[in-house]
């Protein structure tokens, strides 16, 4: 079931991150190629792509731990390589690698990060409790980090990232290697943060998690393949809404030629078709009517929600085809 959509960021929201034509090379390897995007304040940008697509490189450039080879990056109005101390106090970073101290308790780990960001001991106590509450680890506050399960450790890292109440959070692969139930709960926590006005950039290799973000940036082989909100991206990839039909006898796409609103038809099986339309609500009755007139009964007609895996695969395939075409043009 798709998650409840968070309220969109206001139209006049300030752009908090601006990435302009950024490239990062490691020797001969182009880890990031000419990427441009922006993030509005109070939104979640899901940076999605398979392993090695350049997500962590991008997040490192945004946090100022890695400089771009070319292009310009601005985060909260500053070049990340020259972040002021005040700006750093507003940032949080949860790295992909384990960053906790195993011999400290959950509470001590969170307290350490709070102190690292300059929180006074007087303010710290309440914030530590609150952060542990948010990630549902208050009951484990006195347990050593090494004794927590993998999922609890990841949640503890999230508590560490949010304890100093940052306005911008960079979360690198928070759900990597975590079971689906826990992934859902981590995303719930991220969306709760977003609701409280924080801006989040979250990377994930699970394409299906794109649904949880306000906007999705798809990275593949260091290139930005697409950038849009999840619903629009899905629609744009397949050219509109999709109706999946199942009939009582074999049928061909020609049977629907001339039906108003039908833009494209794809044969899935002898008795199954996919129909692309701009408005599934209006077109479905027309299809049923046309087929009935031809003596074909429609057993099932549902709006089909393609998974983000399919969307992603389609987008990547298109980009590869474009590249092949471009290289073909160059060689000819």
């Amino acid at each position, binding site marked *: 079931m798709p998650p409840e959509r968070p309220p969109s960021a206001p139209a006049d929201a300030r752009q908090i991150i601006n990435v302009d034509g950024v490239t990062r090379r490691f020797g001969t390897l182009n880890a990031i190629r000419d990427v441009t995007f922006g993030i509005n304040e109070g939104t979640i940008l899901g940076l999605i792509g398979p392993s090695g697509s350049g997500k962590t490189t991008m997040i490192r450039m945004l*946090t100022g*731990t890695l*400089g771009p080879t070319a292009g310009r990056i601005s985060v909260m109005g500053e070049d990340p390589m020259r972040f002021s101390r*005040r700006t750093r106090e507003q940032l949080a970073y949860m*790295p992909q*690698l384990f*960053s906790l*101290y195993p011999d400290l308790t959950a509470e001590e780990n969170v307290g350490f990060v709070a102190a690292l*960001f300059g929180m006074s001991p007087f303010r710290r106590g309440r914030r530590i409790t609150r952060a542990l509450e948010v990630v549902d680890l208050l009951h484990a506050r006195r347990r050593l980090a090494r004794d927590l399960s993998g999922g609890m450790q990841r949640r503890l890292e999230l508590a560490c990232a949010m304890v100093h109440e940052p306005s911008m959070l*960079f979360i690198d692969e928070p759900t990597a290697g975590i079971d689906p139930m826990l992934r859902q709960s981590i995303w719930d926590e991220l969306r709760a943060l977003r609701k409280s006005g924080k801006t989040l950039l979250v990377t994930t290799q699970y394409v299906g998690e794109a649904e949880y973000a306000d906007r999705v940036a798809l990275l593949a082989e260091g290139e930005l393949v697409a950038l849009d909100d999840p619903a629009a991206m899905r629609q744009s990839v397949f050219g509109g809404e999709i109706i999946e039909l199942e009939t009582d006898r074999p049928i061909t796409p020609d049977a629907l030629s001339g039906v108003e609103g039908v833009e494209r038809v794809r044969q899935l099986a002898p008795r199954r078709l996919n129909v692309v339309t701009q408005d599934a609500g209006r077109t479905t009755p027309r299809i049923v009517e046309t087929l009935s007139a031809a003596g074909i009964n429609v057993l099932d007609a549902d709006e089909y929600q393609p998974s983000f895996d399919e969307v992603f695969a389609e987008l990547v395939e298109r980009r590869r085809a474009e590249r092949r075409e471009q290289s073909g043009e160059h060689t000819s």
Partner: protein
Amino acid sequence: MRALGKSFVRISSFIFKEIREIVRRPGVILSLVLGPFLIMALFGLGYTGARTPFDTLVVVPPQTDLPTDVEYYRDISDAQLNIVGVTENLDEGRAKLASQEVGLLIVAPTNAQEQLRKGEQSVVTVEWNTVDPVRESLAQFATSTLVAEINAEIIRQAAERGITLANEDAPEPITVPPETIAKPTRAETANIAPTAPTVIGFFGPAVFALVLQHLAITLTAMSMVRERLSGTMDVYRVAPVSSMELLVGKYIAYAVFSLVISAIVAALLIGVLGIPLLGGWVPFVAVVLLLTFASLGLGLLISLIADSERQAVQLSMIVLLASVFFSGFVLPVEEFLPAVRYIAYALPVTHGIETLQQAMLRGEISDTWMLWTLGGIGAALYLISLVRLRRIMRRAD
């Protein structure tokens, strides 16, 4: 047979895995092979094996007719004594011995001829100033050799003169006992050092310095490696924390821990083993603080250059090995070639051993330059670590 074969395959999987892991860490191999080899090579090339002779001053009282020529005494002394001068002033000689400008003082008898006329042995007073029991034994041995040489010389001279020991103006011949003829002189010795510790008492401060350095190094050597290899360093890079804050925080934490352990070890040395603390707590604490500061710097530098925890451990062990060989812990630094002594003086423990022995066993630190050097090593290591950490913190690539 088949089970044995499978067992062999399983064992071989570990063999190849371990070998591959080791081979792919060239730094580890380098420190594993080259480190000890280099130390042994330097030791072999740099250790002379020759005991440092005592710088010796001869006091010839003015009323004697003994020669005052340095060369004369050089001729009759053996290799263990390095005659640096002859003086008539006993007070001046004793002052030089007290300030350790010379290591041994030989006071010639004032009334040798008169004693002999009376048929008595004359007394050569030999004084030294050392807290080292090994050096004390050497001084005793050197004195025996010296007295034997003097006696032989007197007998030779007497034989030349027809075994007439009496003064030509004497009204009648004198009778000299055979013992006096055989040994016309004897030595009376004294060690003017404020304390004459046992072997345990002498080596106690050295062991303490070595333990303190090794403790500080091993505590810190791993701390940054772990953070560099995990995601923690990335959190530091993003956080508003500077390299200096990070380094100072580490220094203080490990210093507190090292000093607590040092206090316990010191209490055991002084309270249980009875090693004296003649200089009081102030110079002792000063040396401990400086040695801890310098040793923590060395450990932190190791943790900032090592590419794995394994290499950090190896580098710490190499420092320990070098410290045992070159610091004066076992063999005096002076017995190494001058070029190799620079290695010794680059080690914090060399200065720690010497100044702790002086503070505890002599009551004052005469080699104050060693305290400055210790502070200098600590400051240099801190600065190098800071520069290295800044570089690590600035960029992830």
